[in-house]
């Protein structure tokens, strides 16, 4: 089974259907892959300026909005200076 169990209490990156990227610590999940993130922040990407982090706090994301959940390598993530990263935001999902 492709379970989310290994991600609980880990810092994860969520990519949503509308292209948003949210990082946070996975507090819990259920069988519909709804996910609760604690201490979450949205990362807003743009070409003009560096990545902006918007604090969101405790967030519940509905499973059907989720595209991808990735485990963040904390050391690698901290090594990147987000203010120097310029990138197009991820495109939204198109069916």
């Amino acid at each position, binding site marked *: 089974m492709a379970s*989310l169990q290994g991600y609980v209490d880990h810092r994860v990156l969520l990519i949503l259907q509308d292209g948003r990227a949210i990082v946070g610590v996975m507090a819990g999940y259920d069988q519909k892959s709804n996910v609760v993130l604690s201490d979450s922040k949205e990362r807003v990407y743009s070409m003009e300026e560096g990545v902006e982090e918007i604090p969101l706090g405790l967030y519940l994301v509905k499973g059907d909005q989720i595209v991808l959940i*990735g485990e963040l390598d904390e050391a690698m993530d901290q090594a990147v200076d987000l203010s120097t990263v310029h*990138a197009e935001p991820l495109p939204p999902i198109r069916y």
Partner: protein
Amino acid sequence: MLIFSVFKTLTDQRVTVELKNDLCISGVLKSVDQFLNIRLDGIQVMDEERHPHMTAVKNCFIRGSVVRYVLLPAEAVDTQLLEDATRREAASQAKR
């Protein structure tokens, strides 16, 4: 259900998943479930300069509903067997 079984035989193979937001991710297939959600290890995003969002991500869970294609290694699939099996499944469903 057949395709679920096919994916289960492909665990530990390196595959490339194309998502419906045009993102391509290659990685080692770790597990699949009934919704065709996919766990990948040792992932690499194609066109990394354009998509630096996931440089610090080494393994991920992809929701089955957002997958457009999965590119499989040809040598890991018995095409003839798969063709026969899909036809058998289609025939048995037509009977019902």
